[in-house]
């Protein structure tokens, strides 16, 4: 695969200068997620106010894909109502799990469309999802259950499957 299409400029820019990095107060939930295969990790906090994602802060160690993905997540989701943020999360998840069969929706995903190439590399999908799965977990723990339960349970199974071995 062409490395320029995988490592798009936007990914390398976020990797070199990640947005919203660092752990901040206040927050309602903090989670720690690791990719057991490679050891990449992220500690991520969410601060929710009146149903809005007021802040997402994080400390992460990992490859360019996982770092840039978490950085872009914060750009996209901070300031959104929680249900909208979860909808973006769902769209991103579907793109990454599509093995390249889904055309990315730029209106929803904005800069995150840069990860469309990653969807064709099974070994790297979990890198791109690390921060996103952590975000979803943190929101759930913060007690913001905005969607119906069965939908959430289905997502959880898929997420576990992508974490793999």
């Amino acid at each position, binding site marked *: *695969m062409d490395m320029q299409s995988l*490592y798009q400029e936007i990914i390398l820019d976020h990797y070199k200068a990640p947005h919203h990095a660092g752990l901040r107060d206040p927050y309602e939930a903090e989670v720690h997620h690791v990719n057991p295969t*490679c050891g990449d990790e992220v500690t991520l906090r969410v601060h929710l106010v009146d149903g809005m994602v007021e802040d997402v802060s994080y400390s992460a*160690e990992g*490859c360019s894909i996982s770092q840039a993905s978490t950085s872009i997540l914060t750009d996209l989701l901070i300031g959104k109502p929680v249900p909208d943020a979860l909808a973006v999360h769902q769209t991103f998840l579907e793109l990454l799990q599509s093995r390249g069969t889904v055309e990315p929706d730029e209106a929803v995903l904005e800069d995150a469309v840069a990860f469309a190439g990653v969807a064709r590399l099974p070994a790297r999908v979990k890198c791109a999802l690390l921060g996103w799965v952590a975000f979803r977990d943190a929101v759930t723990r913060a007690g913001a259950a905005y969607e119906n339960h069965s939908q959430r349970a289905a997502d959880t199974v898929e997420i576990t499957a992508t974490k793999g071995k």
Partner: protein
Amino acid sequence: MTVTVSSLNGLLDTERIRADFPILSRRLADDRPLVYLDSANTSQKPHQVIDAMAQHYAHHNANVARAVHQLGAEATEAFEAARDTVAGFIKAPSRDEIVFTKNSSEALNLVANTLAWARGDLSIGEGDEVVISEMEHHSNIVPWQLLTERTGATLRWFGLTDDGRLDLGDIDDLINERTKVVSLTWVSNMLGTVNPVAEIARRARAVGAIVVLDASQAVPQLPVDVVASGADFVAFTGHKVVGPTGIGVLWGRRELLEALPPFLGGGEMIETVTMARSTYAGPPHKFEAGTPPIVQAVGLGAALDYLSTIGMEQVAAHEQAITAYALQRLSEVTGLTVLGPTEAVDRGGAISFELEGVHPHDVSQLLDSLGIAVRAGHHCAKPAHARFGVQSSTRASFYLYTTPAEIDALVEGIRHTQRFFGVA
């Protein structure tokens, strides 16, 4: 010391050897030739192994040790002949000391579990100590954590020096009259270090401890004599010695194999069974419940025969020469730091490194785009990475088919990676 290709002593005739390995001539995406530098992860297989397994399936397939028919006899003969080959290859005093397992992990778990269940002289409990090291693969850490948690014994470990060797400074404290087991890797899968196992085994045996060696990386690279190693148990796996996956080996001293309780219960491991109780077969069958990996044993036998034909002294010399060349070439790369010994002395053919400014995942992705296969991550040795303050590394590992030209391709690929990420 500068090493040039022309001055490399001990290289094998890789052109001839590579002709035996069909996969080494395949092309990858963009018609790039394969540069396979991941042999510490798993080795490639010569056609002699592939053919032996196909021949067995095509002509001799049957279950072993229970079929009276001709095919059953042939299969049993082939399976047991592989046990003889293994015994000869590692210089085991008796074929009955060779237990076939699924892999090294199962072999190490077999020892740790049966020791946890042992009563009498071999029993382990509170106040007893088990010693491992910080450079172990997870498969030689977790079984001992489980053992000590289950028995109340204490887990202790050797630390590492900054250049990636075992720190033997506190050996007198670590190996003492409370020590029941010392379990160490012979050759580190991450750092490449070859440990002075015979000396440590001598110290351990002197206090009555059982010595277990994880030889997963040693048997592929070094001439191995299990008795001379001083160990009581030695574990290795088939797929790293140009053999198939699905089969590993545990060698154990006969009196210990006889004294330990069974591991898994089932067919093949019994003498007689009533509804109330069973009596067990002697070693090795006592530890081989169920239908064993028959064709994998045949493949393993063919693999060890292949290595014996080349000669393990020659394989070790090749590994040493190619590792010295790789260390020299990698030292020319600015921003590259080798984790582990930087001289090819008491060192195996796995080199883990950090590249400043580029994460190992990204290094291996870029190298893969050039057809170069390396491993990125923690290599199942998280504590060893933590010891050197890194989360993960990139590892290039070599075997009897690795050429200096492939090392050159690696170095050029690393430079390309640095340019791509703008860190050169």
